[in-house]
Structures are given as structure tokens and as C-alpha cells.
């Protein structure tokens, strides 16, 4: 009967129910979009790091992120690292921004990623046209088809200029988006050095692969002692540093999380207000229940069931709209991301939000004077 009464109380006043659901829906969509953007941004920022085959990253001291590696490392550091017991391989990676001159005029900023796939550090991924062999061809680069417009190209075979050198698109990747809005262009490491005017043996990062059974922490300590002026980070540390740099030092993440918090706050206030007014309208019924001998727990359960039902309906509607927005954003420069854990988290958040909203109604109902049943 608790669920029946809660359900009937909710649906008794359809307009108020609609207001409640709009409140929850607004909150869910806002939180889903903000957190979806946050996750989408995080994924963009950390994608290259996550996909690298490395146990440790050696970076110049103070490197801010994957895109902002700072001072270049030399082959001396690479050889020093290789000499550390437990290190199997040290793969150099060149990453830097440069100017992409479009074939028909104009320019854009691109992130040149120089890597040798054979080394097993970071191979071009999401290749939809062409292979690594094609990228090794003279002047060859792999560009992302999501950014054709920004790059002023239309497909394989198009030429452009990076810095002072001519490049030809020999392979295409798909969906490698950039948080900095600068498309990533893959090319072999030597060509990347040439395009970026970097000396022959230098690298932005050194990806360290450990021998089986080696203790990462011991190796890290040893590397730190031997390599002055560098930092040795685990993949997770470097990923987190990149996230902090782009999302929090730029304020973008704060804005996204702030928006999500605002959504939660607005949703909570709207649901609390409507639940309170619903309880107030049904206060005589609750007083009757109390007079009939119901425990206060029974009445609280009715209110919480109302809140729970509102949460469930609001969540389903909110998720439908959120998934629609997600679908529409799939080809945008900043696509939303929805993961099962985010969906579950949103449900828990909705339930929590509605439960908190029920507090004011419960406080109201706790103060019922059941003697009012005789004065109606």
C-alpha cells in the first residue's frame, strides 16, 4: 500500500508531477551533459597516453602534458635509461605543435606526433585508410578525417605543408579528437624531427618498457637518480598531470564540474519544493494515517517512495534525452561520453538528490498534530 499511496499521491496532481519531472529531467540532462563533456575531454586528453605501450614516462622537468612536453630529451638520457637494470626498452617520442599550411591557403595548428610503430611505443591508431607502411613513405603523414575542414584537405593524396616541409596524406585515422582543437598528425619520428626542426637524436618523451618481473618503483628510483633534469612518471601520474593541466589549470574542468553541481542543486531545489508542497497538500491524509496508528516510519516511507518514484521516472526521461544529445554530439569536435558507471552514478545521484529533497517534506510531516483529524 505504501507504493500504491505514493504512486497515487504523485499522479493525483499531474501538473505538479510534470514540474517535478521537469526539475529532475533538467538536472539529469545538465549533469549528464556536463559530466559527459568532462569525460569526453578527459578521454581526448589522455587517449595517447593510455594507448601507449609504456610502464614509465621520462619527461623533461616540469612537462605539463602530452601536448606540452617542454625541453627536449637527448639520446644520452635514452642510453642512461637503457642501462638501468629492469629496463627492456626506451622508445623515443616526438610531440610538438606546428603550423599546417592548407593546400588552398590559410593555416591551422597541428600536433605532430612522431613515432616509430616498430618500436612498440605508440603506433598510430584508429587507422581507417592506409597502413603504417604507407605512413613510412616519403613525405607521408596520417591525418584524422574528423578534421578535414580545419586541415583544408579532402582525403588520401592531398598535400599540405608543415613548417617549411611538404607533406602528403597517405593514411587516415578516424575520431582522434584533440582537446586543444589542434588535430593530431602521425608521422615517423625522423620525419617529425625534420618537420619540427629538432636535432637528430632528440625526443619529447622517452617511453620506458620494463622487463617482466621488474619492480616499477625500484626502476623509477634508479632512473630518477641517473637522469638529472628529468621526471620519471608512471602512466597514471602522467595522465593525471595532463588532466590537471588542461582541465583545472585552464578552468575548463572547473566550469564543467561547476555546471554539473549547479544541475544537482537546481534539481534538488525543484524536487524538494514540489515534494514539500505535495506533502502539504496531503497533510490531512498523513494525519489520518497517524490517527489510524501508523508509525512515523510508515509515513516517511510513503514520502520516500514518492521521491523514489519521481527519481525513477525522471531518470528514465532524463537519460533518454541525454542519450539523444550524446548521439547528436557524436560527430562534434567535443563528443559527449556516457559510460555504464556514469549512467549508474547518475541514477544513484538522482536517488540521492530526491532523498535529500524529501527531507523538508519529512520534517513537515513529523510535525503533524494528529488531533487535526477531528477538526476537518
Amino acid at each position, binding site marked *: *500500500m505504501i507504493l500504491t*499511496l505514493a504512486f497515487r499521491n504523485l499522479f493525483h496532481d499531474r501538473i505538479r508531477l510534470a514540474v517535478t519531472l521537469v526539475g529532475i529531467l533538467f538536472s539529469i540532462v545538465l549533469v549528464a551533459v556536463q559530466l559527459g563533456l568532462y569525460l569526453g575531454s578527459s578521454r581526448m586528453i589522455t587517449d595517447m597516453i593510455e594507448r601507449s605501450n609504456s610502464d614509465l614516462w621520462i619527461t623533461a622537468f616540469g612537462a605539463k602534458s602530452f601536448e606540452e612536453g617542454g625541453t627536449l630529451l637527448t639520446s644520452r638520457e635514452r642510453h642512461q635509461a637503457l642501462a638501468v637494470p629492469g629496463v627492456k626498452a626506451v622508445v623515443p617520442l616526438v610531440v610538438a605543435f606546428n603550423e599546417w599550411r592548407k593546400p588552398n591557403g590559410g593555416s591551422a595548428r597541428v600536433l605532430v606526433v612522431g613515432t616509430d610503430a616498430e618500436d612498440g611505443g605508440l603506433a598510430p591508431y584508429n587507422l581507417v585508410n592506409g597502413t603504417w607502411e604507407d605512413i613510412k613513405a616519403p613525405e607521408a603523414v596520417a591525418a584524422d578525417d574528423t578534421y578535414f575542414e580545419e586541415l583544408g584537405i579532402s582525403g588520401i593524396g592531398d598535400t599540405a605543408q608543415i613548417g617549411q616541409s611538404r607533406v602528403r596524406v597517405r593514411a587516415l585515422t578516424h575520431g582522434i579528437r584533440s582537446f586543444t582543437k589542434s588535430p593530431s598528425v602521425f608521422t615517423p619520428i625522423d620525419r617529425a624531427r625534420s618537420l619540427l626542426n629538432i636535432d637528430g637524436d632528440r625526443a619529447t618523451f622517452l617511453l620506458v618498457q620494463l622487463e617482466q618481473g621488474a619492480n616499477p618503483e625500484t626502476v623509477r628510483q634508479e632512473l630518477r637518480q641517473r637522469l638529472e633534469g628529468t621526471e620519471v612518471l608512471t602512466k597514471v601520474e602522467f595522465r593525471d598531470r595532463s588532466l590537471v593541466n588542461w582541465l583545472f589549470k585552464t578552468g575548463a574542468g572547473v566550469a564543467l564540474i561547476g555546471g554539473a553541481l549547479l544541475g544537482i542543486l537546481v534539481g534538488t531545489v525543484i524536487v524538494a519544493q514540489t515534494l514539500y508542497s505535495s506533502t502539504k497538500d496531503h497533510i*490531512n491524509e498523513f494525519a489520518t494515517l497517524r490517527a489510524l*496508528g501508523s508509525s*512515523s516510519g510508515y509515513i516517511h516511507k510513503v514520502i520516500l517512495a514518492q521521491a523514489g518514484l519521481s527519481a525513477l521516472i525522471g531518470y528514465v526521461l532524463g537519460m533518454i534525452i541525454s542519450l539523444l544529445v550524446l548521439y547528436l554530439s557524436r560527430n562534434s569536435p567535443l563528443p559527449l561520453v556516457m559510460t555504464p558507471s556514469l549512467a549508474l552514478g547518475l541514477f544513484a545521484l538522482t536517488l540521492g538528490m530526491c532523498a535529500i529533497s524529501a527531507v523538508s517534506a519529512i520534517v513537515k510531516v513529523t510535525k503533524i498534530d494528529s488531533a487535526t483529524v477531528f477538526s476537518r
Partner: protein
Amino acid sequence: MSDEPVLIAENVVMELGKGAAKVMALKGVSLQLIPGELTLLMGPSGSGKTTLLSILGCILTPTSGTITIDGQSSAGLSAEQLARLRRRHIGFIFQSYNLFPTLNAIENVRIALDVLGQKGYAAASRAEEVLREVGLGNRLQNYPGTLSGGEQQRVAVARAIAASPSVVLADEPTAALDSVNGHAVMALLAKIAREQKRCVLAVTHDPRTLGYADRVIRIEDGRIVGEERRPDGLDAPEITDLTKKRRKKNV
């Protein structure tokens, strides 16, 4: 009929308000309710009828005095313990029926059983049984808005007796009803008292109800000022006549 009282009120005093606004609503009321009897509590407005009903029903706690129901004293009980006492021993009938507008007749009765922890098929069939007892077997699925006043009050009566309480307390049960429905509800209460051996107390100032009473308690200014019992063998119309004659004599 057992003469053992089920509800005993002893020297109940109730003060309402504070300071200069303090009012003594009840000034030492004692009464007993016996199973099988329909007792009417009559008195003018402001005499303390409803306050006494609230205290007898363990909704209000008296300033002093004791209430004992089925041997259990209400003294010193917390709000939750009083609620437990109410749901186990007392059924309420209200002047304005106090039905849940969003629940149909059978659900309105079931909720009283649900509060008591009786759920599922057993509760549904008990609710149906009592609704048939009060003559609403054909209105089980009707919502209060589609029932007449008399029918709504009968749903309220069914709700009050569904959990088989030993005491049924009714607050002005006929006040909102026309003559026909008023008589029907009083006849029902009298039947519940006599056939189901329950204590039924109805607060009223409706003279139409007199004929159904086994006992009439008169209250004025917070004190019980008189008690009349239906003489043995006298039926409903005769006790009404007796009251009229007594009133004439007093005039």
C-alpha cells in the same frame, strides 16, 4: 454481554493553551466503555467532547489522569507507542470521513490493515469482507469522489472495524449526513457494538442518534454531568420518546 470494561478513563484532566490563555478543557472526567454497548457522548459545543475523544483515542495525552485500554495504560507512552496502541485497539470514524481521495473503497480499508502489517491477499479479502458487511459489496472499486456521503461514511466504518479493534471511536458520524444516511450509519454502529461485542463511543449532538444508544453520557464545561442507560427491553424509538418526555419535563 461481558460487563468488564475495555476502556477506562480515570480522573482525566486536560489543560489547553498556556499562560493567560490556558483553558481547562476537561476537569476530572472518568468513564468506562463496555463491550457490546453503543455509547453516545453528548454535549454543547466547547464542552470538551472532541478533546475527550482525542484523549480516549490516545491521540492527545491528558495533563493528568489515566487511560487504560484492554488492560494497557497509556501513561508515559511515547508517540510511537501510542500509535501502536491505537492501531491495535482503536478504530476511528471521523465527521468528514477522512478517506484517501486517491484510493478506492477497498484500498481505503486495506490501508488500515497495511498500517497494522497485514498485507497481500489476506488483507484484500478482509477489506472486501468488511465492506460487504457495511453493505458496499458492489462499490469496492469506487473512489470516494464517486460515493455518496452515506457510502463514504460506511467505507470509514469498514476501515475502522477492519482490524477488529476492541474500541471504535466516532466523531460526529452523522453530522455530514442526511436523515436516511444518518440513521443507516447509526444502525450500523449499533450493530457493530452489539453483534461484534465492541465498545463503540460516538460523539454527537444529533438527537436522531439517541434511539440507537445503549448509554448516553452528557458532558458540559469539561465535566460529565449525567449518564442515561437504555432501560432493559426498551427499543430504539421508545428511548427517543423517553428523552423527549424528560426534556419536556425539565422545560
